[in-house]
Structure formats: structure tokens, C-alpha cells
């Protein structure tokens, strides 16, 4: 009984009395307004350990399965530093085998990838989420990387010459966060090698070789 009477009494109060109490906050500019995506999977100050597998399918004469271990230190949400240790074995592809046939009897002086050790800086400015089929939301980031290191390759011709090549690389990738500190990482990387090939070193300067690798890995982020 009392509540309806109270409500009726309040209703009789002039509304303009409430609206007249204002607070001056000054001028509001666009840059003051930010829409913040709640970062469910922060990377800042985490250590990331990863195992990756992939392939280098784009060379004219070799096709290379490879694997890599990575250790990344995320200094912030955007900047991180990574050490990568990779290994693989370049195989002769169909073009190489065709050239070796008696019809051509030619052996390209191709070198197979054996391994690499690389230091990279990562820049991951994008954090986003995607809706897959309207059923599930995946949080992910997108990053670019650049770095340098050393790549070891070996001649396919039976002299088995080893080439230790200074390497610079760039790449692009994405982490799809799976929860529990894990993420699926997909990366495309292009390494540029400065390679000296022993059999032609007297007549030919260093070769610039590109190794383009597509890798998929599982990483674990820890604080």
C-alpha cells in the first residue's frame, strides 16, 4: 500500500527539477573516444614455446619438409623477439628427376635445406576475433616478423658440399588462440640466403637463394 502512494507522490514532482542538474565535462574530441576489444588472450610479458611443421614447395628443383622449434619473448602485446631452430631435408622434385633422365642428363647444382637458426623481431599490431559460421568465436592476432640468422644447406650432387649461408628473412603469420594458453600458429616466411657453392666458386660469385616456407605449429604461452 505504501509503495503505490510513494510512487504516486514521486510522479507528481516536476521532472524538470531533475533534468536541470548538469555537469560540464568540456569538449569531447574523437581521439578521446576509443572502442576497446577485450583481450581475452593477452601476450604481454609471456614466454611462448612452439613446435612447427611445414613445407618449402616453391623451389624449382627441391621440395622440402621441415620442422622447427621456437622460443618467443613477448615484451608487450605488439612487440616480441623470437629464436627459431629449424631442420629439414630437401628432396629432389619431379623437375630435377626429369632432368637427370638420359634424355637430358643434366644435374642442376641445387642445394638441399638441412637446418637454420634465426633471430626475429615480431610486430603484432592486430588482435581480433572472428566468427566462424555463426557458431564459434576465435580470437586471433596477426603479426609480421623480420630477422636474420644462419642456414645450412648441402649440395645434391654427390660432392655433398655444405654451404653455411647468412640469412635474412621476413614473414607474416597469425595465432589462433585455443584457450588454456595454447594457440595454433600459421606462418609464411621468406628467407634470403647468401650462398657460396664450392663447385662453381671460382667462376661464380655468391648466389642469392630464397627459401619460402609455409608452417603450422602449436605454441604454448606461459607467464
Amino acid at each position, binding site marked *: 500500500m505504501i509503495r503505490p502512494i510513494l510512487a504516486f507522490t514521486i510522479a507528481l514532482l516536476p521532472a524538470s527539477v531533475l533534468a536541470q542538474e548538469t555537469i560540464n565535462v568540456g569538449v569531447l574530441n574523437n581521439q578521446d573516444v576509443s572502442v576497446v576489444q577485450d583481450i581475452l588472450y593477452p601476450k604481454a610479458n609471456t614466454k611462448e614455446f612452439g613446435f612447427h611443421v611445414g613445407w618449402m614447395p616453391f623451389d*624449382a628443383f627441391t621440395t622440402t619438409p621441415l620442422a622447427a622449434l621456437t622460443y618467443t619473448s613477448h615484451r608487450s602485446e605488439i612487440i616480441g623477439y623470437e629464436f627459431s631452430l629449424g631442420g629439414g631435408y630437401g628432396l629432389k622434385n619431379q623437375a630435377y628427376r626429369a632432368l*637427370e633422365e638420359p634424355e*637430358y*642428363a*643434366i644435374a*642442376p647444382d641445387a642445394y638441399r635445406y638441412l637446418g637454420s637458426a634465426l633471430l626475429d623481431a615480431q610486430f603484432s599490431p592486430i588482435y581480433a576475433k572472428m566468427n566462424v559460421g555463426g557458431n564459434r568465436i576465435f580470437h586471433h592476432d596477426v603479426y609480421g616478423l623480420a630477422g636474420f640468422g644462419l642456414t645450412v644447406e648441402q649440395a645434391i650432387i654427390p660432392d655433398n658440399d655444405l654451404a653455411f649461408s647468412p640469412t635474412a628473412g621476413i614473414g607474416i603469420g597469425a595465432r589462433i588462440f585455443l584457450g588454456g594458453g595454447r594457440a595454433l600458429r600459421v606462418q609464411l616466411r621468406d628467407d634470403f640466403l647468401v650462398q657460396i657453392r664450392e663447385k*662453381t666458386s671460382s667462376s661464380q660469385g655468391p648466389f642469392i637463394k630464397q627459401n*619460402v616456407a609455409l608452417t603450422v605449429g602449436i605454441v604454448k604461452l606461459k607467464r
Partner: protein
Amino acid sequence: MNGIRTLSFLALASGCNNHEYFNVAGYAQANYSNDADVIFVIDNSTSMREEASDLALNFTSFIDTLTSEAGGAQSTNGLVDAATNFIDLNANHGRYIDYQLAITTTAVDPLLGESTALEPGEAGWLVGDPAILSKWDADVGDAFRRNILCEATYWKEDDIPADLTYECGDETDVITQQYLDCECGMGNWENNAGSGNEEPLEAALLAICRGVTDPPEVCFDPITPFTSSDMGSNNSPDRDLIRDDSTIVVVIVGDEADNSRRMEQGDTDPEVYLQAFESFDRPIRVVAIGPGWDGNAIPCNSGGAQTWMVERLQAVTSLTGGFYANMEERVDGNCSPTDYSGHLIELGQLLNDLLTSFQLQSVPNVDSIRAYTDGVEIQPATDADLIEPDASTPTYLQGWSYDSSQNAVTFWGPDIPTFSSEVRIYYRPLLGNPRQLPF
């Protein structure tokens, strides 16, 4: 779309990695075999009547040498012989060529012979019984001599002296009617003339076509008399003319060189026959004894050969790693037969080289040559390995050397590949890659 463009660019960029290219020798010779199948293609046309006796005597000398111990026949009389043979085998592989000998003639078209029906000796068909002679046959020398004398040589009775005192089995330096009667049977050696159109290259090709179980397409060209019914016709029940992994050596002897049908008259480029030989996918060497052409004229030309006939044979022998020798030479203004035994010694050397030398298809940059046997690199021979430093033809204790006259890599001593080894020789061709790459 931008992502696809980036991916495509990266793929193209990586696919454009630069490479140097090495030629590879040894591909078709995965097994280093000691088998040599030697096919003699003898001109038995009437133009050879003057050379018949010398041909017979020279071949007699050749086969005697080949079948002697000096020529590689093995004595196997007990354990000492077996041990000696084994040591010799490893020290000098060349002496242990496992050869087969067979004979055909330069006649291809049966219509131009004594009879219009196809007969042994024509179109690459072998002569003799047995037609294929093996090193291991008890009387290979006698059988070879009979096949040459009785089946592949043109004899005219009027040209052959008689010797009524000759008895069968006597040694002789002169071919007489009685000698031929003893070797071939009474009168069986007379008038054995083949076609006057000498086609030794075609005859050799057809002989090989008849000697393999799966002849390549080139054998069935309409231009030749070879048909599917001729497949294997040169093989005997216990022996194939062309064995697996063997090297084929063709020895052409004739006074009119070559007028084979797949080449136009006047054409000196034997590419069509080289490609035909290549289709058998094994090494084939061609040796020829014929008219001597010095680039200007044929000074001794009893058969009336044209210079282009001689030139194409010389080209074939050079390009296949064989050799060409003159049948006659001018001595004191007169033409006289050369001593075939010297040529045939060269043939023996060629057989020896089959096991130790690997011919290259292009002239190499010698510094770029790398040789491997079963994946192990063989080092090049050095001056310290020379056996006789002052010898005109260098021989080495070990390693490999490049022979520019043969355009071949020769292995020496313990580095001679053992039988069935896989040999690969990589080299940069001096004039760039000869073939168009497929990309």
C-alpha cells in the same frame, strides 16, 4: 586478393632461384659390365675380290691373338691359375672382356644379291653355324675363321691359286683353293657375293634389331625389310646376340664405305644412325676399316667409293668413340693393303678401354669434372701417379684422367670401377649446355 598476389609473387621469386648446371655421364650405364658383343659387318660384294685373301689372313691373325692368353683367354688349370686370374682381374680388368663375336655383311637388299630370297648375311642376318661365338667356346678361333672365309667373303675361283700339296690342317700364309676346300667344304666357298650397294650402317642396325627381344620403333621403319617376324632372329636357343648391359662394338670392313638408305646420297651427317643406335639405350662403338680419305682425295680406291661415303663413316666412328683405319695405303706409288693386325690391335685396345673409359657427350671444362663410383668420389690422377712420365700416352697408377682424343674419362688401377658399379661423372660443358632445358 592481395594475399593471393603476395603468395604468387613469393612462389615465383623462389622458383627463380639461380643454378649452374652440370652434365651427367654414366646414366645409361648403371652397370659396369664386362660384356662386349662384337658384330663384324663385312663387305662381300664383288669389289672386294682383290682384298679377299688379305682380309682372310688378317682376320686369322686377329682371332688367333684374341683367343690366346695374351689376348685375355684365361688359363684355369688349378688353384694357382685361379689365384693368378683373380689377381690379374683386379689389376687389369681390361683383359677379361667377356666377348661374343658375330658376322653379317653389308648387303641389306636381298633383291640385289645372288638370289632374290633373303639369305643369311643379308639385312643384318648373321652368317655361320654357330652364328654367335662366345669367348668360352672351345673352338671359337676356328669357328670364327670358317664364318669369315666361307660365309662372308667373296671368292672367285680364278683369283685363288691352287696348291695340290696342301693338306688340311697345315699352316699357310697363302689362301689356296685347297685351303678353302678344307675349311668350308669342297666348293662351298665360291661366288658368295652380296649386294653391290654397301649399307654397313643399316646392316649393323638391322643386326642389332634382330638381336634384341624388344626392338625399338626405329627397327620397324618402312624403309627397312625388318618386320615383327624378324624379332630375335639373330638369337640362338642358348645365346642372345645382344646381352643385357653389354657394350656393342660394330666393326665395318669394306672398300666402298657406306651408302645406307636412311641418308641422302652426298649427306655426310650420320645423325639419323646415331639416334637409331641411341634408341637401344646402351653404349655402341663403331670401328671401320675402309678407303683412306685425307680430306682431299681417296688415293687408293679399289672399290670406287665416293668421298661422302667415307666421310660419314669417319664421322660415325669418331662420334661413337671408335676409330677409322685405312684399308689400303700408297707405298712406292702403288696401293697395297695395310696390315690389319695393327688395326685389330687397336680394336683389342678399344675393348679394353670399354671397361676403363667413360665417354662424355660434350667437351668438358676439365677442371669441373667430378667422378663418382657408387657415390664415392674418385680423385683425379696427378703427375705423382704417372707410371712412365716420358711416355707419349700417359698411364697412371690410380685415379682418373681425361682423354681429349676420345673425349672420355679413363679410370686407372684400383680406381677402375668393379663390375656392376654405378659410375657417375659430372662436368660443366665447355660450350654451355647443348640441349634446351624444359623450362
